[in-house]
């Protein structure tokens, strides 16, 4: 295999142009400043002056239909379009993963060695991992086999967007998980408050729309219970997605007390508020539901002060038929992975001035730290791109203003409330094992190239402060 040189790039946090040499086996061979070396046999890629970052690790993705090796190729293309090379799949009713056998079967399908050459060519595939179900059948009552599933390769245990309703059951879950130092990932909604009837957060808007709702404190109730029990038992606990001010505060206080807990949120929770539902837009029907503006702002604050550790896509692609229904009947979830980076950069970097390297750490090093045991210890951003490491990286453009068009998603699912939204920042190229596995230039997008708006600082400050207009309506 030929060497590859990516020239004209900037490292995260740096301004000066440089280049990286990738050896024929797909590992980083050398970093250099200034002009790239002249290597006639090497594949030369122009980085266009963009930032190069480690590829992303998405800790919450739903995949229901992984049934054959060719779907691994298809899924890989979706993930690569988002800059993601590692993703952890969440159990769902269609993909229960509630015993060791099903975990082994899933990981066998996702083993790159089993990927079939076909329409994906000989390009590398993404690394798909999975959680095991926290309880059998995701029913919240009976323990599943954490020990055997852990040996089979499950990275942690969760029940998708469900939680154990019974405190006694959750106490036993924590106790049993502790035997294996297993990570328990809990969905922050109290099942008795956020029951199946509730389809949005309780608010004036819910009253006006006439939709059944659950109070936002459902999150606090659940987290408070969980964390109280974690305080009793100990063990590894992760909560997410966090969507409310009360939830952020509880996590913040628990961390101050020294509990080994972590938390995540998803881009839609820090970008949208409940008004994105508009006139019953089912693409904005999520679990947890979109919250009020104060909650959205609290999530941003939680990210900036480090209370929230990780950003996950919470990608839940659905067929149109699941969304083309009256609001209460539509299925929860959205196709969110391809909008993950643009929303992170738009909201957190441009609007709130958060440093790019801190934002990127939330989808690179932070999730890897959470699963450190499975991936051979902690790695910071620099380590991930050190000489000798696999050349799994993302070339990203944090400046360009463009308009999201779900029709151009690589994902066959287009269920997004962000269709037509203007964002700033995107994945330009994704590189896996030294090979370009996604190239934005090869896709047809309408990119708004406006020299006057190359860098936008807080374009929405005005309206966010007076809270009168939803963020959604600004797009």
């Amino acid at each position, binding site marked *: 295999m030929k060497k590859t040189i990516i020239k004209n790039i900037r490292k995260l946090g740096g301004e000066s142009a440089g280049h990286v040499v990738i050896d024929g086996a797909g590992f980083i061979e050398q970093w250099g400043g200034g002009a790239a070396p002249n290597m006639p046999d090497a594949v030369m890629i122009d980085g266009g002056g963009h930032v190069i970052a480690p590829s992303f690790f998405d800790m919450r993705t739903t995949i229901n239909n992984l049934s054959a090796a060719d779907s691994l190729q298809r899924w890989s293309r979706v993930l690569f379009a988002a800059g993601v090379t590692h993703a952890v799949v969440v159990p769902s009713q269609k993909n229960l993963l509630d015993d060791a056998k099903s975990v082994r079967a899933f990981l066998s399908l996702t083993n790159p060695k089993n990927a079939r050459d076909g329409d994906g060519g000989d390009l590398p595939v993404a690394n798909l991992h999975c959680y095991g179900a926290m309880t059998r059948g995701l029913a919240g009552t009976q323990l599943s086999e954490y020990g055997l599933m852990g040996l089979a390769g499950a990275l942690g245990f969760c029940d998708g967007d469900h939680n154990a309703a019974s405190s006694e059951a959750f106490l036993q879950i924590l106790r049993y998980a502790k*035997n294996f130092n297993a990570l328990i990932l809990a969905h922050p909604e109290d099942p008795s408050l956020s029951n199946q009837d509730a389809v949005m957060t309780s608010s004036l808007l819910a009253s006006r729309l006439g939709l059944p709702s659950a109070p936002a404190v459902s999150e606090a109730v659940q987290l408070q219970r969980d964390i109280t029990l974690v305080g009793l038992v100990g063990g590894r606990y992760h909560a997410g997605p966090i969507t409310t001010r009360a939830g952020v505060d509880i996590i913040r206080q628990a961390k101050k007390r020294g509990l080994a807990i972590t938390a995540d949120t998803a881009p839609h929770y820090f970008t949208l508020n409940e008004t994105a539902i508009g006139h019953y837009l089912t693409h904005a029907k999520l679990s947890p539901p979109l919250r009020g503006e104060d909650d959205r702002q609290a999530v941003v604050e939680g990210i900036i002060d480090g209370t929230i550790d990780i950003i996950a896509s919470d990608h839940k692609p659905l067929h149109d038929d699941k969304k083309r229904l009256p609001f209460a009947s539509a299925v929860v979830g959205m196709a969110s992975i391809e909008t993950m980076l643009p929303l992170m950069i738009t909201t957190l970097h441009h609007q709130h001035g958060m440093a790019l390297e801190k934002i990127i750490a939330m989808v690179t090093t932070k999730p890897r730290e959470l699963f450190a045991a499975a991936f051979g210890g902690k790695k910071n951003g620099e380590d991930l791109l050190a000489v000798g490491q696999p050349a799994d990286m993302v070339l990203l453009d944090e400046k360009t203003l463009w308009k999201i068009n779900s029709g151009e998603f690589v994902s066959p699912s287009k269920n997004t409330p962000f269709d037509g939204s203007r964002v700033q920042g995107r994945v330009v190229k994704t590189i896996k094992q030294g090979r370009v596995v996604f190239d934005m230039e090869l896709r047809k997008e309408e990119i708004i190239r406006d020299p006057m708006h190359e860098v936008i600082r807080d374009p929405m400050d005005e309206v966010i402060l007076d809270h009168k207009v939803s963020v959604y309506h600004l797009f």
Partner: protein
Amino acid sequence: MTDSYLPYQGRHLLSIDDLSAADIHSIIARSLDYWQASHESDTKNQIIDKYRGKSLINLFTESSTRTQKSFEIAGKRLGMDVINFSVEGSSIKKGETILDTALTLSAMRPALLVVRNAEAGSAHLLSLKVSCPVINAGDGAHEHPTQALLDAATISLQLGGIDKGMAQLKNLTIAICGDILHSRVARSNIILWRKLGARVRVIAPLTLLPERVAEMGVEVFTDMNEGLSDVDIIMMLRLQKERMNGSFLPSPAEYYYFYGLDEKKLALAKPGALVMHPGPMNRGVEIDSAIADMMDRSLIMSQVEMGVMVRMAVMDILLSDTDARAKQAAPTNRTGKK
């Protein structure tokens, strides 16, 4: 018979907690004497005739095979008439409380009442009300004192008899593995081994460990591979199958893989480490069948045999001078210990 130990002075046998190390010593010594005697045909008759004309009532409100039969055989070998009381067809089935049933039975003047009941503290309750000595044959998840005594007697015998065996006990590390939370056997054994100076470990998933169990003077492990390292004796506990699915454990397969005693895990213990089990066993769940049947390592059948001897010893001690004990017993002291 060995006379070198002071006999136990208690009126009842309710808990290992009520026994001193010397009491335990004396009971084990007498048990080993019975064991010796039972293997010498010329002394057998002398034993059998000792309490002819007295009666023993087995009041078992919880199902039991080996313990009830063991007490029955022990009573008969001591020459007693044994009445087995079971719940089926009894007044308890008609709604009578166990206390009233026990009082009724007590009025019939038995020499001994052996009680098994699903509720912790029931033997203590009955001991306060009935006129005869009470032996606790298992009260809920509290204690099963004769089981712990027979376990200690079995090991003493294995280690060379009362003097040599008891001396060696102080140097032993004993691991009790499995459902500690619900086990009365574990509680009695922990207390007994600690009193005799042995090091005790408990090994179980956290869902099957009692709260703050370390404060009972044991080392706590949740990993068999760590907990079994360098132990002399492994005591496996029965895992109730009803706990296999639910909030205690996920499945028999997972339990066996991580907590079942197989050859690989046994190899982590000291060479020649002994294996015990109070029975009944779930082969392939908490113990590999091949290990349960190991002639040189498994003491399981010896435990059953020693059970009869220990129960004979306990009955003998409690009956030997009942009237004198009754006079000695302080009114406020349940066990009559001075």
